[in-house]
């Protein structure tokens, strides 16, 4: 079979493509589902930021609690990771958390470039893991960044929720009294990020998405962060979860997956877009982790939690190469 025949066979009865009709269909979908574009107002970016935070930006999370009243108790502190398969519809329907209350950042995380890993360790208290072997194509020294600990409070506000319910067509269920009176304390970091290749700069783009910018993302990224902690002065984790899963827009499939997590207060959920990537359980340095790869081997990542630290190795590498780097960390 020669190349011409191969090409002929891979062809199909290709009718002309009607771009105008495609654009009309796209506009209708956007209008019907109320989907907002990347450049839309901050309200949407907040939701996206939360999704991104759930996915990889565990980098902004931490263990130490300071300045929090003693009435707070820990409701979330991950010790393991689990995948959640999400479709495009699931993401479009996520409730906008800014409608449920007010987030106040009390300690803004700060980003800095560090000259050496030893300096990064002094700055953050995290002992950075070094890659003993690097795959072919990954060359040069790593750029090292540190991210300081950040902290914020989220105060639930039923009045705000009722006000927003009047503006949108869907009506959220009433907020239980135990949640309405609650404040959450969310903290994260510090973190150390090492990158090879590309032009990754957490100051300009803290989202770490290997597929986002093929020309400029690092070939390899190694990140470690103190695991995030959420503390509450009222509502329990189960109450919060039940309430959030009852929101309109949360698909039954997504809710069922989240309910099925056995130890939710200690499990970091990693959303995996079902159309672009797949996830599987792997063992990294003797610990169970989650490998996420896109369907073509363009990029992949592995996440695991050990000794209170969330570790991420990601890059534009295949599964074998990426896991070899993760296993070589010392």
């Amino acid at each position, binding site marked *: *079979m020669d*190349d011409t025949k*191969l*090409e002929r*066979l*891979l*062809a*199909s*009865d*290709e*009718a002309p*493509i009607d*771009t105008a009709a*495609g*654009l009309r*269909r*796209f*506009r*209708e*979908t*956007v*209008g019907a589902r*109320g*989907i*907002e*574009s*990347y*450049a839309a*107002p901050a*309200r949407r970016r907040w939701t*996206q930021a939360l999704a991104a935070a759930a996915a990889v930006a565990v980098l902004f999370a931490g263990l130490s609690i300071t300045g929090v009243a003693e009435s707070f108790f820990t409701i979330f502190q991950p010790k393991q990771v689990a995948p959640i398969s999400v479709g*495009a519809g699931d*993401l*479009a329907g996520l409730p906008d958390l*800014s409608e449920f209350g007010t987030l106040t950042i009390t300690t803004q995380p700060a980003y800095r470039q560090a000259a050496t890993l030893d300096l990064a360790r002094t700055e953050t208290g995290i002992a950075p893991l070094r890659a003993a072997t690097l795959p072919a194509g990954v060359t040069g020294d790593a750029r090292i960044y540190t991210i300081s600990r950040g902290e914020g409070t989220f105060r639930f506000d039923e009045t705000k929720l009722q*006000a927003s319910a009047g*503006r*949108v067509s869907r009506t959220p269920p009433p907020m239980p009294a135990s949640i309405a009176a609650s404040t959450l304390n969310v903290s994260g970091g510090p973190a150390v990020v090492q990158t090879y290749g590309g032009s990754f700069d957490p100051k300009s783009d803290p989202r770490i*998405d290997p*597929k*986002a*910018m*093929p*020309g*400029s993302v690092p070939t390899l990224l190694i990140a470690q962060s103190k695991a995030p902690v959420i503390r509450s002065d009222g509502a329990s984790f189960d109450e919060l979860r039940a309430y959030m899963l009852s929101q309109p827009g949360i698909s039954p499939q997504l809710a069922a997956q989240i309910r099925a997590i056995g130890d939710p207060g200690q499990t970091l959920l990693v959303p995996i*877009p079902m*159309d*672009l990537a797949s996830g599987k359980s792997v063992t990294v340095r003797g610990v169970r982790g989650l490998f996420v790869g*896109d*369907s*073509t*081997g*363009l*990029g992949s990542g592995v996440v695991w939690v050990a000794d209170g630290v969330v570790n991420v190795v990601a890059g*534009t590498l*295949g599964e074998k190469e990426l896991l070899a780097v993760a296993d070589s960390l010392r």
Partner: protein
Amino acid sequence: MSAKVIELGTLPASRDPRLPVAFERLFEAEYGRVVRIAQRVLGDAAEAEDVAQEAFMSFYRAHPADAPFAPAWLHAAAAHGALNVLRGSKRRVARETTDAAERAASAIADPESEAVLAEERALIREALARIPAKSASVLALRYSGLSYAEVAAAIGVNADQIGTLLRRAEEALRKEVMRHG
């Protein structure tokens, strides 16, 4: 005259179906190519358009329309999306074979050779679903008319590697066809 204070959060959300101009330009420039990439993999116009719509939707949500990586991102997303559909639908390949064979038998001057061609196409798509995803992507992108540079941008490698990747992918596909054909 008193100052008016408007809290931004209380403004109603816009439901204007118009898209940002930059996005519409991107859509018009790339939709045809994105559909064609998916169609090379799937051999089905309607399914290819579904994959293209999904790719543009993911991009629309997550990235600015004027991003320099936009075309490469969309091409890669079309290849991934189509390969996922192909892998998830063995029945579809069987259906395609039957449909094509029936069409060939009913309306075409040389129904026998058309039926053979339809069967060969189905076989090659089954093989495409089985070879490594990166190889399948390279073939879909290149055979849909993208230049070496464009294929390289979509899969994130240097353009001078494409010749080798393409040869290996063609070889892998041939072997897979022989093995099961």
